[in-house]
């Protein structure tokens, strides 16, 4: 499916369900997402993370609604509990099945987003792994100079911000020296197609969800 349309669909569904309070829509979307993830080769460790990470906030919301809200409604508790998982599942399906480069290319070609944003975000994404490595390096560099940097030490983050500032400047220069000029036309290596089939899936998905929202509680 076209990455931009996929992003649009995910955002549309999430936003719409934010303004409704339907239980079944959430559950059906979560099940749909799980099927898609299994199909895409999601590993069981990753499933465990998917279940565990939102568990505490979800339980907290559930308990707040059921025990402390004026209505003590079990139904609304379940709606909010499942809604959190719905957001997380949709987000996971999107990130797991979409290549960031394909998304950037699609946003540039199909949505005519200025390439500076498309590639700026992509470059930043590519820096994430480096940032993780940088934090490890900073801590070791600190210890080698007799400074212990705990994860709560302001110095650690100060240095991390310094590094990031450096990188942003160097990255801008690197992009420019590789021929990138803001606002100038670019060609494309791969054309990301936006087909009738993409639109058909998007519209079908949205219509089906409308039916579920209207028909089921």
């Amino acid at each position, binding site marked *: 499916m076209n990455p931009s349309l996929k992003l649009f669909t995910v955002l549309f569904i999430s936003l719409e369900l934010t303004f409704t309070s339907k239980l079944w829509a959430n559950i059906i979307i979560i099940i749909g997402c799980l099927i898609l993830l299994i199909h895409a080769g999601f590993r069981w460790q990753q499933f465990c993370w998917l279940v565990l990470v939102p568990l505490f906030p979800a339980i907290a919301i559930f308990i707040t609604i059921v025990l402390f809200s004026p209505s003590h409604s079990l139904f609304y508790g379940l709606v909010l509990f499942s809604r959190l998982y719905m957001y997380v599942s949709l987000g996971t399906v999107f990130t797991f099945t979409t290549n960031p480069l394909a998304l950037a290319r699609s946003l540039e070609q199909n949505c005519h987003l200025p390439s500076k944003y498309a590639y700026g975000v992509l470059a930043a994404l590519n820096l994430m792994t480096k940032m993780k490595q940088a934090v490890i390096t900073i801590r070791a560099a600190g210890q080698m100079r007799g400074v212990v940097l705990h994860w709560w030490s302001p*110095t650690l983050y100060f*240095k991390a911000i310094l590094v990031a500032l450096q990188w942003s400047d160097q990255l801008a*220069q690197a992009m420019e020296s*590789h021929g990138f000029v803001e606002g100038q036309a670019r060609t494309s*290596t791969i054309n990301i197609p936006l087909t009738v089939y993409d639109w058909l899936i998007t519209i079908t998905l949205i219509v089906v969800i409308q039916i579920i929202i209207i028909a089921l509680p």
Partner: protein
Amino acid sequence: MEKILFDDLSFVFDKQLILRHVNATFKAGEIHLLTGISGSGKSTLLKLIAGLLPKYGGEITTGTVSVSTAGQIGMLFQDPAMQFALDTPRHELEFTLENCQVPTAKINSRVISALRFGKVEALANQSISTLSGGQQQRVALSVVMAMRPSILLLDEPFANVDEENRQLLLAQLLKINHDYRTTIIITDHDFHGYQRLNPFVWQLRDGKLIKLLNNQKHGLLQDDRQYIKASLPPVKASPIISAANLSIKRGNKTLLTPATFSLIKNKTTLLTGPNGIGKSTLLKAIAKLVKYQGTITFDSQNIQKISPGKYYQRLGLIFQHANDQFLNVTVGEELNLSLKNGQNSYFTSQQVQRSLSELGLAGREEQVIYSLSGGQKKKLQILLMLMMGQEVLLFDEPFTGLDKESLKKVLNLITASREKYPQTLLIVSHQLNGLDGFIDYHLEFNHQQLKYCGGNS
């Protein structure tokens, strides 16, 4: 006529006058070699031609620089790690070619020929962050070449590149200059192999740019490479670090198959090997910064059983990227930190001042570290770590960006410090000039094994 013209140009960066009334002409199709000590302004000059300065900092105070060209200007930076916006060499090449508005149908063939140029076909789909410094430099060169630039600016392009690839890339440069009449401007400190490019040689000194005469040039470009004489460590030498059945991987690639070796206490060991063989990764394994299999012991104690806090008081790593070493903003703050926590009794505050002026860093206490030149950062980095005085220091390419004179001063400083305060050193370096007599033992890393070389190597 296409050319680059400096007309009475003066340039100020971070309140310092870097270039003073520079006059120079670089004609199309010529090859130029810029020389000068670390911090003399070579990178600044290239960035002015590339149009990155004064856009990204600094100010032109007199004169102009004009670059008349119809084509692209390609620039290779000193630090190869920081010139990629995308994740793999292939994607970076595609991004670059798209920027240059190469038609879709031609992109693939241009990508392939660029990869071939830098001999990095096998690395095309690997994540750039997993490549070694030398490999990154070759990828960066390929990307710049893919642009088919009419002007090619190379800032110390071979600093981390091994000898074989250096010769290969020099031959490639000669070829593109011949085939496409590309103007090439290179900065370097190590001049061997340049003779056959027959470049115009310039010297940048005290902000002035001087074109060298032919006889001066030939003296400079002479191949004065030295070979390192090292002996085999004696059998009963006492080791400080020992590795048993050590194997290391980077991603899926095996770098070291079970190897057993030791580093001799209070001696200097040189570690060499081709690009991407795993030298930096080996240092990081010894410094407990990457995972490995087998055991490494420090003073007969398994390093996994020593807490990082204690371990790093006894072992220090001089990172390949100098920026990784610094924790503060100004030179003075860094020096104070090392003075406060350092164990090396050689470095009293008077000695630090003497060393600073020796290294040409005196009076820069207020300066922001990140505005120092590549070579100045290297010198400061080495000084700061020497002051810390760990029993073992691991050096990862410490001499890149250092001119001959600076290198000599750095080596003298290390020697003087060790006379008073003995330390064990392990040094990774492609740059072997001037190291003869400084090295006790020579460890060679090749074919996933480590071996001490003896006699002439």
